[in-house]
């Protein structure tokens, strides 16, 4: 799941529709479950990840005695719409949006802050619930959002052939001696962040995400620079297969790709490296509804999601990374070794979280990507 590109997919939609049909038939079962001993929790999350029903909720229930009533929804717009209804009608305690979205939910009056004393904030890996991500999890000093899993987009490099600066930087993507496999819109963001890190931009790159005038000003610069360096791009990618083939069949030596690409190529002489500017990253997490009924249970749930076992299961369900310390023993060892090879504590602290990108922003971003491709 890569939220920055497609929060919505046909498959998710279909699965969501199917799940919706299931939910319609559910009330009988749910009201029976309400008699259970340690209470219940109404959780609204992502459709299409069967491990939740198969493993996560049963494990959670075995550990705490709390029964989870799960409502699967295909995308965040629908979650938001459901939450608005639930504000009147009730029925939702916890929802799982991405970090860039909950601000809008909060300004619509949907959320209440978590009680940190009932959570275990020490459970989280550094950089995920503190630092830049921690700031973005709070409003008015109150904690509204706790992470549940995360993923990255960083440098995949051919260890033998790629020319890297020391330390490796996003700028290496634009080095004419490297052949690069890229996807247009994140490349423009990489160019912007690289220029920003060198102090070559008239204003911070982040301004572009909140102010459309700043966006065009900054993206015009990034586009012009990226077009100058376009000669070393040998292929675009938009999905996992293309990225992989760009390296293996088309001989690219460097790329800005998802962690899964680096993972799949790890035994073929490629390495996944976090650039000095910080890897691109997304994360999603749990928020508490303003009119939540089962507040104690919700805190239990969020706390459990940060434990080694809970966070490992969560990451496995989404094929992403765990947020909790010590989750390695519950993960596939090859996966843990791979991530630890890329992200030490410093790299974790430097993660650059994709900011909120409005519909207007994304439309404009698509236009810039078009111009970049057509150049």
């Amino acid at each position, binding site marked *: 799941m890569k939220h920055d*590109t*497609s*929060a*919505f997919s046909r498959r998710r939609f279909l699965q969501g529709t199917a799940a919706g049909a299931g939910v319609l038939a559910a009330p009988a079962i749910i009201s029976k479950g309400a008699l259970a001993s340690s209470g219940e929790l109404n959780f609204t999350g992502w459709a299409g990840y069967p491990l939740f029903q198969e493993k996560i909720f049963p494990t959670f229930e075995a550990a705490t005695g709390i029964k989870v009533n799960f409502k699967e929804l295909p995308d965040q*717009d*629908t979650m*938001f*719409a459901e939450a*608005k209804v639930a504000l009147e009608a009730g029925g939702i305690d916890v929802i799982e949006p991405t970090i860039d979205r909950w601000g809008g939910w909060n300004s619509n009056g949907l959320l209440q802050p978590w009680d940190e004393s009932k959570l275990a904030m020490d459970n989280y890996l550094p950089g995920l619930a503190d630092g830049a991500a921690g700031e973005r999890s709070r409003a008015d000093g109150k904690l509204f959002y706790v992470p549940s899993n995360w993923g990255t987009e960083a440098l995949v490099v051919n260890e033998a052939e790629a020319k890297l600066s020391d330390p490796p930087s996003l700028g290496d993507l634009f080095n004419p001696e490297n052949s690069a496999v890229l996807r247009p*819109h994140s490349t423009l963001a990489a160019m912007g962040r690289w220029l920003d890190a060198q102090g070559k931009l008239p204003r911070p790159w982040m301004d572009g995400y909140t102010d459309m005038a700043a966006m065009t000003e900054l993206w015009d610069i990034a586009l012009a620079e990226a077009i100058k360096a*376009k000669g070393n*791009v*040998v*292929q*675009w990618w*938009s999905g996992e297969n293309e990225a992989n*083939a760009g390296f*293996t*069949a*088309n*001989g690219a030596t460097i790329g800005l790709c998802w962690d899964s690409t680096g993972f799949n190529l790890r035994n073929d002489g490629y390495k996944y490296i976090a650039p000095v500017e910080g890897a691109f990253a997304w994360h999603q997490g749990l928020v508490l509804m303003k009119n939540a009924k089962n507040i104690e249970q919700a805190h239990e749930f969020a706390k459990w999601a940060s434990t080694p076992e809970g966070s490992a299961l969560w990451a496995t369900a989404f094929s992403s990374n765990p947020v909790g310390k010590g989750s390695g023993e519950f993960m596939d060892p090859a996966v843990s070794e791979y991530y630890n090879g890329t992200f030490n504590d410093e790299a974790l602290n430097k993660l650059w979280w994709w900011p909120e990108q409005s*519909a207007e922003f*994304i*439309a404009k*971003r*698509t*236009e810039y*990507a*078009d*111009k970049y*491709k*057509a*150049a």
Partner: protein
Amino acid sequence: MQDLLRRYGPGLTFMMGLLVAFWLLMLVIVPNITLFEQSFRPYLPVTEIGGPRDTYSLNNYLKVFDGKVEKSFLGHVFTIPVHVYTFSLTIFYSMLVTVICFLMAYPLAYYLAKIVNPKSLPTLLLLLFIPLWVSEVLRAFAWWIILAFKGPLNALLQGIGLIEDPIRWTNMGYAGVVIGLVYTYVLFMLFPVYNAIQSLDSNQIEAAEDLGAPWWKIHWRIVLPHAKPGIASGSVMVFMLSAGSLLVPSILGSTTSQWFTQTIDQWFKDALDWNTASAYAFLLLLVCTLFVTLAMWVFRVKLSDIAK
């Protein structure tokens, strides 16, 4: 209809009619009308759909004129909206594909229709058909593999000493796309042309030869005019299929090529703006239809000729 009734009885005929009606209505007409209606409405958050901002307008269609880029052609520098630029190139390269398909298909069609021994014709047709049975995805990927930097073509050329360093075939503008489209759609040109030439009376060719016409004149004055409806229907098919292809340009495209269908695809999948994507899709359909109508008028082909 009478035949159907007589053969299958009223019950089965009714079922068939119902199924066809369902197919047309639910799988073709309703989705298209839905998209058409969507294309005039703005892309809004779920909560604002049906709200005061949800009004009809042409804004989605006009977005094609946004985002100017500077281009030069024959030393003349001009600015053009990036999507119009993409669109023009799509039309241009689709025409190129059509012409190349014709140049490849015409001699082959003539050979099959007039020269080859009728006994070996079924074998030859079968050989031509076999690639058509393979999925378009596989054929496009096959070409991608052939043209890849570390692929067999470079290995072969290096092996026989023709080139020293491997060549990036997949990164030469629209070359990969044109190769892929020609390979995918050439048969759609071949068979209509073959059918048309086949219906030509061979005596006419012999008569022309007897009267001393050179070979090129026989083709120019006799075979080509007779084959015109076949060429026209082949061209329409190849052109429309090429301009509307998403798969081949996505797989075989280079870092500088962009097909208009890819732009539509981006609106759907990157921008999640299905409304603008629908508008662009209808734009493509409309302009291509106009273009084909114009081309048919220029070449004096009537729709009824093609239907033959």
